[in-house]
């Protein structure tokens, strides 16, 4: 992997159906920011041990260069659950705002040209 291509991970849990939408939106954001949409590392969090190891606070979780695109608060418990996101217009959502995802990608790969 080149220095300008951050590792992008999507962690998901089967009890929450939103991860496929999140993956599609993540791939679109990668393409928008000049990164490879197929470079996403997609990993299932299958149980409590996985969740503890990953510090997983809910599905889906998207990390860019190891940083959560919407970092959870310090009190957020590790849990096999669906994550609650808030879109920029204030609506509750099971997926992060695509604009937040794009911002995280651009911050991690500032030399990439948007497409």
């Amino acid at each position: 992997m080149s220095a300008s291509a951050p590792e992008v991970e999507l962690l998901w849990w089967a009890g929450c159906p939103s991860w496929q939408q999140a993956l599609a939106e993540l791939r679109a954001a990668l393409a928008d920011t000049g990164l490879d949409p197929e470079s996403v590392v997609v990993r299932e969090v299958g149980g409590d041990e996985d969740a503890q190891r990953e510090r997983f606070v809910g599905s889906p979780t998207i990390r860019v260069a190891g940083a959560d695109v919407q970092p959870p608060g310090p009190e957020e418990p590790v849990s096999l659950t669906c994550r609650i996101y808030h879109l920029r217009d204030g609506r509750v959502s099971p997926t992060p705002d695509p604009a937040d995802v794009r911002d995280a990608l651009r911050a991690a790969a500032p030399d990439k040209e948007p497409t």
Partner: protein
Amino acid sequence: MSTVPPAIGDPAPGFDLPATDGETHALGEEAATVIVFTCNHCPYALAWHDRLLAAAEDYADRGVRFLAINSNDAERYPADSYEAMKERVAADGGWPMPYLHDANQDVARAYGAQTTPDVFVLDGDDTLRYRGAADGDHSDPSANAAWLRAALDALLEGREVETSETEPVGCSIKWRP
């Protein structure tokens, strides 16, 4: 309580459950009853919540009773504890429907509830007439619980419910181990 969940046209299982209002609630004599399996921490349940409350208010004077039921395992998910349920309703200044606690999950199992939310509509004889999502898009408030409202309108007007079953969409119910 039956272990076979009702299909459309079957009698709905009865229950007696405590609610955050301190009362115990059961099926009654209303023209229609809407049962919503929901919870405190699911983004889908939260996204649909205001639409469901609005429907409860809009249909209250037409003899429709709404009951919200939380069946999630509160030991593993403390955000769904009875105390947390009470705190949520109090913080909202009250809801137009009671919020029932299904601690042993018998009611969710009896109905075959799968997700939060999962909506069941019963007619005046407590026969199941609709089951599924409130509308087709959790992300669009203007969808306005249209599928639920269509089912209620049909029942109240003595018509068959045109679409009696849709796929419930939401977080899985958190079953006890």
